[in-house]
């Protein structure tokens, strides 16, 4: 069996496991974990957003929480003020995030590396402070709660998020769609252009790739991914708060991505899952579990900078020598890192 087939089987296994998980967990009486799993899926979208920029275009953003926050507030505010339905609220949230990313990206992608990382933090800080001071609108640190509209309301048939299992499947399907689109993107000419820029932006521009436009496109798509995550998170918690826009949240997403594997399709999900499960298991017995998270991050960067999925794929290349199914794991180009 060739390596590519194994990879494809592993991918299918993950999807099947996730699809069957609520059924198994409910049978075991562990309903709580269905919600944890849904939360992991939502946060993995934020990590996927970081990954799209870092892993595919080679830009490290420390401000993706801003677009997450826009998705969250777009959804929450449109439900509370306009009383729109579930799908319209999600769409408004994602649109808000995309609009913000389009504007911020037009400025931010003029810069690279350190400067890019700093300016993304500044943008998120500016809007964090704005959200904190616009308390009547956003609820500031306390946030604002609302009740989620039903997902479908077709006469007699009504589907709401009240049931954790239904909620899980809604989240699961949307996340599945996002990751599928990301996989398609990675193989499309656009994705190849992204990776060409990651490897060497000067050479990419010489072969006719518009580097600025490509980086901006990636930034907007990343903003959309984060926006979907934020919109889902608002529906999931029936809550939006400015505290999710602070740069520590963005930093956590970067951590998840790197632990999982930069530039791989499933890396962000794997990293998010590992670290959120670590939190769920360890925080009850060790209050300062973040010390552990910090140590894990440092150890991963030093000893396995390609992350969990990246290491798995490297093993595959060694045993097979053949091509792997997903995109190559990102190697941070030495030239760009200067």
């Amino acid at each position: 069996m060739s390596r590519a087939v194994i990879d494809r089987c592993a991918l299918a296994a993950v999807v099947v496991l996730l699809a069957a998980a609520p059924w198994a967990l409910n049978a075991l009486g562990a309903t709580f974990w269905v919600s944890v799993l849904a939360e992991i899926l939502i946060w993995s979208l934020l990590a996927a957003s970081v990954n799209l920029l870092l892993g595919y275009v080679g830009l490290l953003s420390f401000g993706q929480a801003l677009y997450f926050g826009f998705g969250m507030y777009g959804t929450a505010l449109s439900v509370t003020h306009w009383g729109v339905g579930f799908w319209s609220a999600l769409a408004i949230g994602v649109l808000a995030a995309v609009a913000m990313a389009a504007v911020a990206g037009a400025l931010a992608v003029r810069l690279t590396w350190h400067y890019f990382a700093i300016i993304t933090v500044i943008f998120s800080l500016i809007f964090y402070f704005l959200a904190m001071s616009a308390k009547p609108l956003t609820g500031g640190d306390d946030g604002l709660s609302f009740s989620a509209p039903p997902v479908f309301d077709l006469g007699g048939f009504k589907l709401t998020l009240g049931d954790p299992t239904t909620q899980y499947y809604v989240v699961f399907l949307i996340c599945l769609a996002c990751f599928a689109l990301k996989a398609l993107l990675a193989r499309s000419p656009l994705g190849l252009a992204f990776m060409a820029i990651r490897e060497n932006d000067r050479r990419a521009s010489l072969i006719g790739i518009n580097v600025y436009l490509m980086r901006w496109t990636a930034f907007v798509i990343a903003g959309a991914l984060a926006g979907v995550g934020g919109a889902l998170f608002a529906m999931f918690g029936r809550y939006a708060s400015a505290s999710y826009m602070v740069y520590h949240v963005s930093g956590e997403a970067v951590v998840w991505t790197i632990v999982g594997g930069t530039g791989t399709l499933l890396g962000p999900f794997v990293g998010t899952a590992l670290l959120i499960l670590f939190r769920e298991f360890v925080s009850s017995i060790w209050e300062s579990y973040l010390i552990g998270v910090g140590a894990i991050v440092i150890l991963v960067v030093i000893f396995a900078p390609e992350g969990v999925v990246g290491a798995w794929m490297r093993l595959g290349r060694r045993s097979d020598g053949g091509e792997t199914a997903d995109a190559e794991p990102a190697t941070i180009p030495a030239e760009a890192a200067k």
Partner: protein
Amino acid sequence: MDLVFALAINGLVWGLIIALIALGLSIIFGLLDIINVAHGDFFMVGTVAGLLVAERTGSFWLAIATVPIVGFLLGLLIERLVIRPSARLASLTIVTTFGLSMILQESVRATFGAQPRRMAAPVQGTVPLFGLDYEIYRLVAAGFAIVCLVAFFLFLNRTKLGTWIRAVRHDHETATALGIPVTRVCAFTFALGTALALIGGAIAAPITTVEFRTGVDILPFCFMAVVIGGLGNLQGTIAAAVLLAVLEGLVTSVTDPTIARIASLAVMCAVLLLRPRGLFAGATR
């Protein structure tokens, strides 16, 4: 009008302390090409260490003397364990220092407690200044900061080690060829930057709250000073820190502090986009 003066003076005092911390950030960036996200937490560790030493020994001056030594040793340790092994991936050091920041904050919370504390000023009393009673300690703190800044530049410009640091900043490879122990100079510089942040913390401890989160608040401000001054431009960093703090103080007198903070973030944004080498371009790193 008196209030404006008081806020401007407050800004000046803060600006000098921030300059000390931002200087550490700037020198670490200039030499090692590292964006040290944990730098704010070094400051926080300084405030906590200052408070604890002063509490145990009863002498604030002893705290001022010991905290930089602690900082230097801590810096050496961190450089060896975290920075050096991850330095080959320059971009990822942001991530390792972020992990470091988590470790420092949580360690302090676990040992020192989550409760914010205040520290009594070692010099009590006030002086009349522009018709206001101004706390003497704030002036003392500003004086300390100036002494440290002057000492730092004397060290950098007048000693052999300082010359080595400047040589390595200028060109790693040539410095190696000339027989400068580059690895050790880098370790020393990182430790020096850490010590600067810790002593800034110890000086600031009596005029700020002491808790595990102060670093998160101060880090963006330090970054603003470093970026507006020009990444790695040391004099620019100091000028920008003082300028920003005084400006924020003045803006605070007419509107609320959050707006002042947003305004300076917007300024920083403009500088990054229009003059990425800083306001005082010309002097490069």
